[in-house]
């Protein structure tokens, strides 16, 4: 069943019982929560996703539960659990959905060592994927959100899953994380997008999540061939410059951004080399989103010639 086929009440019940199995291709996650707004946020953000039967195998069991304790009636807090074990510090209950998203990212990144997992956005067009590694402050999420509203397919805004056997990139097409100023930038850039209400005072500032495009969600199980690695470099006031970057240097940047590079040892070394070898490597300096999108379009049309 699709999430949008459930009423919010039904979702509340499923979440309370811990019987909501969400299909996040290639993973299945069992979600449990006693937090009031969780059902609403899930129905909004995951409307186009499917559930799995309750007897199915889940890769991860996650819970976001209200904390009990003396001060929690004044400032309600929530905590994330993975396979029954509490993880992370508790956060204000208003951040529960964001905590679910971050927690899911952590589950995948820390426990899926059949992939090489890179902290990067991945978008695809014409069968070819662009990888945007996630240096802090680079603006990859904003850029990703912009691109997927201008013809590129979303694979992921945070976690690139590289299938080392087949040299394919995958993502889960999950909601996109936007922070601070980029929330309004994207609202103006693409007024039709659906977002959660912004939540302030998180460790990342003010955060909102953007619903992934339906087409992207429907194609989530399709991998994409790596074609470009673009290191975004947001620099206020600058002209857009797409500059070629050496592969060896890009290799080190990717290895650094790969959560489990070290675990894969020699295999990881060869896999990053494979990924980098198949891609044109660039650094993009930009200040306006429109300029950046244009630069990407040029990359794409350049490769079609």
């Amino acid at each position, binding site marked *: 069943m699709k999430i949008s086929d459930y009423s919010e009440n039904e979702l509340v019940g499923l979440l309370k019982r811990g019987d909501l199995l969400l299909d996040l291709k290639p993973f299945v996650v069992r979600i449990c929560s006693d937090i009031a707004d969780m059902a609403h946020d899930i129905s909004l953000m995951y409307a186009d996703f499917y559930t799995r039967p309750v007897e199915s195998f889940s890769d991860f069991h996650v819970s976001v539960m209200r904390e009990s304790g003396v001060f929690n009636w004044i400032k309600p807090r929530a905590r994330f659990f993975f396979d029954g074990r509490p993880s992370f510090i508790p956060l204000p209950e208003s951040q529960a959905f964001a905590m679910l998203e971050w927690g899911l990212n952590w589950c995948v990144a820390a426990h899926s060592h059949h992939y090489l997992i890179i902290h990067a956005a991945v978008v695809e067009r014409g069968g070819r994927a662009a990888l945007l590694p996630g240096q802090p402050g680079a603006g990859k999420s904003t850029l990703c959100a912009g691109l997927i509203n201008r013809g590129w397919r979303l694979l992921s805004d945070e976690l690139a899953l590289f299938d080392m056997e087949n040299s394919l990139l995958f993502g889960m097409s999950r909601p996109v994380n936007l922070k601070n100023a980029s929330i309004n930038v994207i609202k103006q850039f693409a007024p039709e997008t659906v977002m959660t209400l912004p939540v302030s005072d998180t460790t990342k500032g003010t955060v909102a999540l953007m619903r992934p495009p339906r087409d992207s969600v429907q194609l989530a199980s399709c991998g994409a061939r790596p074609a470009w690695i673009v290191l975004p470099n947001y620099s206020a006031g600058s002209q857009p410059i797409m500059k070629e970057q*050496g*592969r*060896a*240097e890009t*290799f*080190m940047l990717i*290895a650094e951004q790969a959560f489990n*590079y*070290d675990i894969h*040892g*020699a295999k990881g*070394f*060869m896999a990053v*080399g494979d990924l980098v*070898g198949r891609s044109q490597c660039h650094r993009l300096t930009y200040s306006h989103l429109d300029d950046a999108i244009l630069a990407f379009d040029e990359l794409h049309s350049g490769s079609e010639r």
Partner: protein
Amino acid sequence: MDSNEPITWRVKHPEKILHQYWEGEDCVVVYDGTSGNTHLLSLFAGEVLGLLMSDSHTVDSLLLAFSNDLSGADESSATGIIENVLSELRNIDLVCNINR
């Protein structure tokens, strides 16, 4: 140890070292299967490493092997360059000397 004996360098486990290089670039990436570490080396350092993987060398034999590349430098500068590279490679545990 005889103090007149020149220091001889080599790679301890060459079979555990992998490298990747892309044509036209000035750097090479190297994986060391013993320590599990990955390194970005200058092309020159990579070539010194490559030589030491197939045979042990002293500073003098390396000077000879790279005489063309170092032709612009006088002997003490060239020796300094070689010694710096060896020191860098030893600090990251890629090479060791075998005189001990």
